[in-house]
């Protein structure tokens, strides 16, 4: 059973629908927190609690936001993975997944897939989406532009659905920050080095 811990519910929803597509029969438990502060504060205890109910692989997903991704990753590792109850073997099957800016950068990389969710919207994929400074805002802006008469993109409602249709190979090719997820879920390789 794979546990995903995210800052926001919409990110949990995205990964909960995506991961079972990447690894057949994967059972995913998801827990969200109110922002990265809460995630850092309560993440270690949440991993302990999820471990006790049978989760064996752990993904902590956070947005780098304006911070440097490697610093946010280190923060996640030190404050969550180094203080939680997992042993070396379990840590080796865990992953700190840090989106450059926000996870919406991954959605932008295969934005054309949203046509399957919002049928009247036909956007193109965006190359180098991780270079966009505010991907969620960009996505919302694009959704509003010429959006008269059609459904607008709303992260809480749509991210889970997008996880069920997005082309994850394409996203992995375009977004280096997404690759640790593929490595863990498809190949069983985590990115947390034991102490």
């Amino acid at each position, binding site marked *: 059973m794979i546990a995903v811990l995210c800052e926001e519910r919409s990110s949990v929803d995205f990964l909960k629908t995506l991961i079972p597509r990447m690894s057949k029969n994967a059972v995913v*438990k*998801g827990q969200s927190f109110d922002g990265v502060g809460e995630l850092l504060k309560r993440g*270690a205890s949440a991993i*302990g*609690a999820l471990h*006790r109910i049978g989760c064996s692989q752990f993904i902590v997903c956070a947005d780098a936001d304006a911070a440097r991704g490697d610093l946010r990753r280190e923060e996640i590792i030190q404050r969550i993975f180094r203080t939680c*109850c997992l042993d070396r073997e379990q840590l080796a099957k865990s992953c700190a997944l840090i989106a450059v800016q926000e996870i919406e950068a991954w959605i932008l990389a295969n934005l054309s897939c949203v046509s399957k969710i919002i049928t009247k919207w036909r956007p193109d994929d965006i190359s180098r989406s991780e270079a966009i400074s505010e991907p969620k805002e960009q996505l919302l802006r694009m959704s509003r532009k010429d959006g008269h008469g059609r459904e607008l993109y709303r992260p809480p409602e749509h991210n889970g659905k997008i996880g069920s249709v997005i082309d994850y190979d394409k996203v992995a090719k375009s977004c280096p920050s997404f690759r640790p997820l593929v490595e863990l879920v498809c190949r069983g390789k985590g990115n947390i080095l034991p102490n």
Partner: protein
Amino acid sequence: MTGERMLHSIEINGFRSCDSVVLDDLDYLVALVGRNGAGKSNILRAIYWAATQASVPRSSDARALASIRNARVALTFTTVNSSLRYELAATSNGGSPLVTTVAERLWLENSGSQQLVAERSGQEITIIEGTRTTGVVTDSSTPMLLALSERESSLSPIFSQALSFLSSVHYYPLNELNAYGDSNDVSVIPAKALVEWLRTRSPDRLASNNAELRILSMSLFDKDKYEDFMSIVGPDGLGLLDSIQISGTGTTQDNEALLTSGEPLNLFYYIFYLKDTKHFFYPQLSYGTRRVIDIVAALVYDQSSVMLIEHPEDGIHIGLLRKLLGVIYSFRSTTQVFAATHSRTLLNDVKFKQIRFVSSHNGITSAAKLAGEKLEVAEKYITGHGDDSGSVYDFIELREDDSP
């Protein structure tokens, strides 16, 4: 609650979205959790509907019956020294004119076995005392227990206890715990309004939007309750208020005469709420403060056997909410509380056995408790050490996450 005056199980069939809903093994606090629209309020309404139909003449509640087609609600409860099961079934023809037939039954429970002691079909009631049966005819608007409590029989104490318990089941919807006259900044309570409220009070009236009338009534007619109320909301309790000042203007008379006078009363009351040397009228208090005052006034004044309350956390700061929960717990020997809630604070303060998970599938409500392996998993989730403990609320989120 020590086994006295509380609901132990509830069965609901055909009431709004509730079909085959069973809640058993109930504690003094029952937290109903579930997504919006799952049917939490319908469960509360079903309990209230059955209790009201059992204890209030039906002509006053015609609307409640009008929306019912084929509903059955059974409540198993203990009173002072009896374990009872009351069942109400209403069948409507759905046509015009609308005709609703009500059937009621009451069982006495004794070490696992049930003994039917009274049943009603239409206007005919049968009392069953051992092998002896007695027929009673009453009008269809009078509930069975009300009709029987006025008759002499060996079962009279049982009927009275059942009636007393069920007539004290009160429902507090979210929008009804508000102040009398709260559209104005200054609240003035005419004595006529108070007298009218006291004269016509019924379970409905008690549960409706009358916090200030409750406070005024306690201060005039029941000093003990008023002191209890003030000790809870005052400086030594929740610290919401320093004191309350009540003044009357116009024709003065002694308090008891208020209730007996048949004349129009030219008397008005003002209630001032003092905090930090400032005077406030009730509508000037913050929403959260009013909300807590409402709940405490209802707890103290109404003395409900069962309090059915929607979202007690609404508008209340988490620190104050924790204190309020302490107050609610302190009433557990007299008042059982059913709360529909989404509150992290409240849920982290209860035990898994007090939670019922309410969900809806294809518009049909179901309610589940954690038992067996599921309960073990839940207990494992929260059983950590220090910072390694999971919270009840987080487990609920995980569990709801698994639901379709």
